[in-house]
């Protein structure tokens, strides 16, 4: 459906924005990968959490650990830097470059482009400062604090307006498939980001996420998985569909396949989130939904990969000489590998072994390094000579980058696969007799140290390759001059973008679909006889629709053809497709009666001090290494459950009041869901769980003192910094707004309770004559007073509370709602200091 042109126009593309995004992508890529390498070494050598500075500064800095450099704080920086800074900037560069050319129009607004470009960099800088400072929301891949999130939303809107405005101004009636992928990216990322980042601030900048418990798990992985789908996958596929044909100088292998690839991917990806929560307390139907749709992803993903590789047919000879083709071919192959492995890991039986181990880390990195990293490098090497009107400075260096990077990825991924499988098997191995487990957690950790070292080496190689890329691109830019393409384009008679909303939605195909679904539902729900009538109506409608298609088929096809020449209706349909997927998973979780969820166990509320301790736990990023979810699997239950308790896996009700929930996704350390215990006799608040207060105190001071071979960092600053007790009233007020049934307490009650509990724990520690932090020499009473204000005591209070619950008695299937805040309040008014597990 090409459109006749009446006149021509001269257009100069805005390539300056492309150059800027490319520059920052390379810069942040280097930072993100360097931080990744540091994180990798921290898992082999605990000294990399800050102690190494003693050597580097010849003793000027004396610390067992530096708060800004611990794994818990750096790992979110690494993931955010790679996903949102490196891949984000690369994706924007690719989108700005290709959209202008596919639309035959300059980007709509230079001002919006500037705001987008510089705004995004400011967001990255804010993230790079706030995450190491411990300012986090504690949700994986959604750690950024609320002021930054508002900025992200605003900048994304600026990007969307600029993009759709450019589409509206376009001089090419058809929307090439790459643009479809960009539209899907903009719509889905906006929707997911906003839903997953809804928070109520307690002050500046802390906040609590709106979603807690199961919804949080779902929303988080709906976002987390789709963030993976929609940020580093859909836009890169769009980039593949544009740049791969350009590099090979031949059209995409099958345009038909690209259409099927797009719609299948958009419809399936959004459903696959629950595969991150397999074998947990998530309802089985949701787990099956996640697994089913993950397996279905094999088809579109491999369809896309084959379409990409076959585009290179006839151009394979270029593999020997052209680094761009090398990177693209390897990148698309890694896409195929990663998307084969993803659904494989979503099979419940495989997931038993892979989840919480390094196998998942290997999977993610084959996508991030192989697919994203190599596609980025291929695109940069193709773009640089064109953006600076020169030749690539060194083809040999680009080839060297390719081989170093490839070896690096393979070493990394192979190390993680073997580490994951090995640790998974060891954790599940039972001792002779079959009643106990064979290995302690720390033994499995020691066993995979060679693989961890190999991983660090592989990551370093990949980083080295990328340094070569940065040098090559810099030299290329220096050897030429910035160049903005000027082209003569034919301005078509405007027939596109003329479809009205009414025309989009009110027409025969849509009407038949809606009526058909409606009468089918009536067939399911209506009583006998009426349901038969509904079925007859459905069949009649189907016959009428077939008849309508036979007589007015051309009109129906024309409607669909026009849809693809009208970006707004197209965008609306993508939005509907994505929204259905999310709504089906999340809405049932929100509306199903809460009582049904708690399964008898109801989490004990945190006391004010425990809540403060929890915030410290979140701030230090402990969830990066410790899960709080005992899966319904025998090895998990054997390892982490308590003696004498039946079915002691994690139940939904046990994390009902957690904002944010801390189920975790990786166990570099053991699960902590059952770490806590009952109130100590004679104490008002103080609890003792699996280990006593002294053990935790020593563990935070020097983890190797209590767990030989542990790679956990030391936390000396917890013994110096004070707990923010004064912020607790505001925090508890926000928790109540979020539905956590705290009894009514004034600020004095809250602060007094916190102080009483902290003094109990501090007295206990001081009486045990624990080692005082370096530089302190106090008597017992003085030391107890000192300790009571320190963060370590709040954190110990939280650790000793983990996994405590009470039994929610059900009076009958049709009885009321015991989780109603008022009824709960009345119930505990007389004893709101909580009771120990009374199972």
């Amino acid at each position, binding site marked *: 459906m090409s459109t006749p042109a009446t006149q021509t126009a001269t257009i100069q593309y805005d390539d300056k924005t492309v150059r800027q995004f490319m520059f920052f992508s390379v810069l942040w890529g280097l930072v993100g990968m360097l931080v990744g390498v540091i994180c990798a070494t921290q898992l082999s050598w605990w000294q990399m959490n800050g102690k190494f500075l003693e050597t580097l500064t010849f003793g000027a800095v004396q610390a067992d650990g530096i708060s800004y450099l611990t794994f818990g704080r750096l790992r979110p920086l690494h993931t955010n830097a790679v996903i949102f800074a490196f891949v984000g900037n690369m994706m924007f560069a690719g989108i700005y470059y290709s959209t202008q050319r596919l639309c035959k129009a300059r980007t709509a607004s230079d001002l919006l482009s500037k705001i987008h470009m510089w705004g995004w960099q400011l967001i990255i800088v804010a993230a790079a400062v706030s995450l190491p400072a411990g300012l986090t929301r504690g949700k994986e891949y959604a750690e950024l604090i609320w002021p930054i999130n508002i900025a992200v939303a605003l900048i994304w809107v600026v990007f969307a307006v600029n993009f759709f405005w450019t589409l509206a101004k376009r001089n090419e009636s058809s929307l090439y498939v790459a643009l479809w992928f960009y539209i899907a990216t903009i719509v889905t990322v906006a929707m997911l980001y906003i839903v997953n980042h809804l928070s109520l601030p307690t002050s500046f900048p802390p906040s609590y996420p709106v979603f807690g418990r199961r919804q949080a798990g779902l929303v988080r992985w709906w976002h987390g998985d789709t963030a993976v789908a929609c940020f580093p996958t859909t836009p890169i596929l769009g980039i593949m569909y544009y740049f791969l044909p350009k590099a090979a100088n031949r059209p*995409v292998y099958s345009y038909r396949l690209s259409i099927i690839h797009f719609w299948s991917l958009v419809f399936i990806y959004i459903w696959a989130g629950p595969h991150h929560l397999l074998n947990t307390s998530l309802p089985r139907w949701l787990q099956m939904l996640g697994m089913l749709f993950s397996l279905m992803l094999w088809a579109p993903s491999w369809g896309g990969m084959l379409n990409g590789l076959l585009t290179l047919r006839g151009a394979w000879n270029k593999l020997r000489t052209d680094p761009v083709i090398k990177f693209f071919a390897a990148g698309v192959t890694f896409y195929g590998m990663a998307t084969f492995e993803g659904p494989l890991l979503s099979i419940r039986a495989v997931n038993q072994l892979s989840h919480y181990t390094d196998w998942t880390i290997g999977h993610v990195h084959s996508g991030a390094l192989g697919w994203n990293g190599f596609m980025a490098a291929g695109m940069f090497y193709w773009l640089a000579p064109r953006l600076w009107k020169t030749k690539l400075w060194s083809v040999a260096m680009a080839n060297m980058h390719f081989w170093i990077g490839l070896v690096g990825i393979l070493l990394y991924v192979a190390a993680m696969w073997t580490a994951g499988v090995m640790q998974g098997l060891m954790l599940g191995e039972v001792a002779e007799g079959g009643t106990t487990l064979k290995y302690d957690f720390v033994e499995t950790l020691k066993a995979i140290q060679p693989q961890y070292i190999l991983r660090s080496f592989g990551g370093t190689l990949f980083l080295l390759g990328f340094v070569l890329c940065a040098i090559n691109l810099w030299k290329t830019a220096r050897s030429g001059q910035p160049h903005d393409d000027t082209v003569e384009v034919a301005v078509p008679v405007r027939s596109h973008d003329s479809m009205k909303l009414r025309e989009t939605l009110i027409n025969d195909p849509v009407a038949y679909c809606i009526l058909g679904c409606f009468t089918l539902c009536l067939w*399911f729900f209506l009583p006998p006889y009426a349901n038969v009538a509904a079925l007859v109506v459905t069949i009649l409608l189907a016959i009428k629709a077939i008849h309508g298609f036979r007589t007015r088929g051309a009109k129906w096809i024309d409607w669909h053809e026009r849809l693809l020449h009208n970006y707004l209706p197209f965008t609306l349909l993508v939005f509907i497709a994505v929204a259905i997927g999310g709504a089906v998973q999340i809405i049932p979780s929100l509306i199903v009666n809460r009582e049904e969820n708690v399964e008898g166990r109801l989490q004990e509320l945190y006391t004010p001090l425990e809540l403060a301790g929890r915030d410290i736990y979140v701030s230090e990023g402990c969830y990066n290494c410790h899960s709080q979810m005992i899966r319904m699997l025998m090895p998990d239950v054997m390892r982490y459950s308590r003696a004498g308790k039946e079915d002691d896996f994690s139940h939904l009700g046990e994390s009902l009041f957690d904002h944010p929930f801390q189920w975790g996704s990786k166990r570099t350390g053991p699960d902590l869901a059952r770490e806590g215990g009952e109130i100590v006799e004679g104490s008002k608040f103080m609890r003792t769980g699996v280990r006593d207060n002294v053990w935790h105190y020593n563990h935070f001071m020097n983890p190797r003192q209590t767990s030989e071979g542990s790679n956990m960092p030391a936390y000396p600053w917890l013994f110096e910094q004070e707990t923010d007790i004064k912020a607790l009233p505001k925090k508890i007020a926000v928790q109540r707004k979020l539905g956590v049934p705290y009894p009514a307490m004034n600020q004095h009650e809250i602060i007094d309770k916190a102080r009483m509990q902290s003094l109990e724990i501090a007295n206990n520690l001081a009486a045990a004559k624990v080692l005082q932090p370096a530089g302190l020499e106090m008597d017992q009473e003085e030391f107890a007073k000192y300790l009571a204000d320190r963060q370590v005591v709040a954190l110990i209070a939280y650790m000793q509370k983990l996994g405590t619950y009470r039994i929610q008695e059900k009076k009958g299937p049709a009885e009321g709602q015991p989780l109603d805040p008022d009824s709960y309040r009345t119930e505990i008014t007389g004893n709101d200091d909580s009771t120990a597990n009374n199972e």
Partner: protein
Amino acid sequence: MSEMFKRVVHEDWTTIVPMIAFALMFGVFVVTTIRALRLGKSERERLATLPLNDSDR
């Protein structure tokens, strides 16, 4: 078949969700496949060569 759905609806209504999901996905897949297969050759080739029609070969 209606009885099967009724049982699902009454006994545990949430289990119907994956079925609806599958039906929707399958419907979309069929529609887009038909649409892709019916795309005319000339239009298909024109769309496929769009990235090659600019100055940056």
